[in-house]
């Protein structure tokens, strides 16, 4: 056991894991976090707190994690390399660990051009792979990048993201291999809509033996409208939404209902893919739907440990 988080226990026990997201608010008010924590407790094993996702300023990931932990909900903090150099990243990792945060997702981060502070100076001292390798060395040897050795290293379970749908496609498996070599314990994938392409990526991943070295949590994203599907297809780089998915959303009488049904079907399918050890449900601005999705996809009850 590396960090002893609930997520780590679920994955190590070989059970199908469930993670979901809680989006921190664009304000200093902790109430939405507390509200969602209470509502979602018990419906997933851990919840990601995004780190200024799409470069929009929000309540910080670490503070959000501390807030939901008061409600006895396990966080996965996200740490992007966009806003912090190696001094701040290592310092925040120590701080997070001291607060009892045990899951950390390492990300390069969305470029600030997508957000609401376009004039910001970015950092990118690391990318997600170097971040993983540095955090891994810090937790296992207590050694900083600069060589200093710490007496009490952080206790963290390390995750990363990977997008099977970004180009060059044939390199995505190799890139996951780099992340695994760097120290990733689990990976949450980009939202999957093209199941055939995901299966192909999984073939590559299994071919490289990565499914034995890292826990793969397949990303799903329930959509509310056909417009949202079209937007993701056309406007979100590195996202593939096949036309049959868009048509299905378009032709549905109740598109929200169809979005949920589609998501549940996807989870059912993902459960059958060898090497997929869980799902990551990204119900963006639709957190209320997580309990229903988890229930109808047969993911409940979630395991508990003494």
């Amino acid at each position, binding site marked *: 056991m590396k960090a002893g988080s609930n997520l780590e226990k679920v994955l190590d026990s070989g059970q199908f894991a469930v993670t979901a997201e809680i989006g921190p608010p664009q304000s200093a008010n902790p109430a939405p976090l507390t509200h969602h924590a209470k509502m979602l407790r018990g419906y997933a094993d851990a919840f990601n707190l995004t780190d200024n996702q799409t470069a929009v300023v929000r309540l910080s990931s670490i503070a959000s994690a501390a807030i939901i932990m008061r409600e006895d909900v396990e966080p996965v903090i996200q740490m992007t*390399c*966009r806003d912090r150099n*190696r001094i701040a990243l290592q310092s925040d990792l120590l701080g997070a660990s001291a607060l009892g945060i045990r899951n950390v997702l390492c990300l*390069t*981060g*969305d*470029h600030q*051009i997508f957000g609401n502070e376009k004039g910001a100076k*970015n950092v*990118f*001292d*690391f*990318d*997600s*792979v*170097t971040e993983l*390798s*540095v955090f891994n060395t810090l937790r296992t040897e207590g050694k900083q*990048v600069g060589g200093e050795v710490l007496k009490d290293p952080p206790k963290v379970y390390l995750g990363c*993201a*990977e*997008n099977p749908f*970004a*180009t*060059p496609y044939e*390199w995505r498996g*190799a*890139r996951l*291999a*780099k992340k695994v*070599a*760097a120290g990733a314990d689990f990976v949450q994938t*980009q939202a999957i809509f093209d199941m055939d392409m995901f299966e192909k990526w999984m073939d590559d991943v299994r071919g490289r033996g990565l499914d034995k070295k890292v826990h793969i949590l397949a990303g799903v994203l329930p959509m509310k409208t056909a417009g949202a599907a079209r937007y993701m297809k056309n406007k979100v*780089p*590195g996202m593939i939404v096949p036309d049959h998915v868009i048509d299905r959303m378009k032709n549905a009488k109740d598109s929200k209902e169809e979005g949920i049904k589609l998501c549940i079907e996807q989870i059912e399918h993902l459960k059958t893919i060898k090497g997929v050890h869980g799902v990551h449900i990204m119900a963006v601005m639709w957190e209320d739907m997580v309990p229903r999705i988890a229930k109808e996809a047969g993911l409940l009850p979630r395991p508990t440990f003494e």
Partner: protein
Amino acid sequence: MIVAKRKPMGDIAKMVAPYKKVAVIGCRSCVAICLAGGEKEVKMTVSALKVRNRKEGREQQFEALVVERQCEKEWVKEVEDKVKDADLVLSMACSLGAQTIADMYPEKIVFPGLDTGFFGVPEEQGVWSEKCVGCGNCIIHLTGGICPVARCAKSMLNGPCGGSSNGHCEVNLEIECAWYAIHERLRLQKRLDLIEAVMPPKDWSTGHAGGRRTYVREDARLTQHQKKGKEGAQ
């Protein structure tokens, strides 16, 4: 080369308006090649300023000048009289040229006529692109001759990120993804193994992060004696 572009004419006119005698000094090096501050652009700028002045009833004297390389003192010396005579120098060189004049004549006011952009190359007629950020520790032997620090929007060393879309960068879909290009280049060369291993954190201290840089070549420096001789010759 250093790639720059002229500031908007309205901004330049506003900057120079309070000064009677303005020396507009271009440079025949990089900024001439990128069509920002060579002889032609200096003349055009002066004409445009004169036209504005006629319209607005303002009286100013302009001197249009060009030097070979404005970042080298020897070349700037050639227009020293004009610099000394002017109330304001509007440099149409990159910021290095402007700063060279400003440092040589500390009592003179020197304004930039250009916005200095980047270290880049001409891609085709009228198109220039950034290819280096001067990190002080070149790694392109590991990345197929393509610099990810300059050409990836996130300066990733282990790319491409999840936003690489049909070989293009998520930040600007008109621009190629540097890591896609690196992958394609190394695939062609059958050297993909170069990027299979985790590239460790980069030491940025050799770049601007380490503070302002000065490179000194002791073997190339003049002795005190030689310096005196050179001063005497001038």
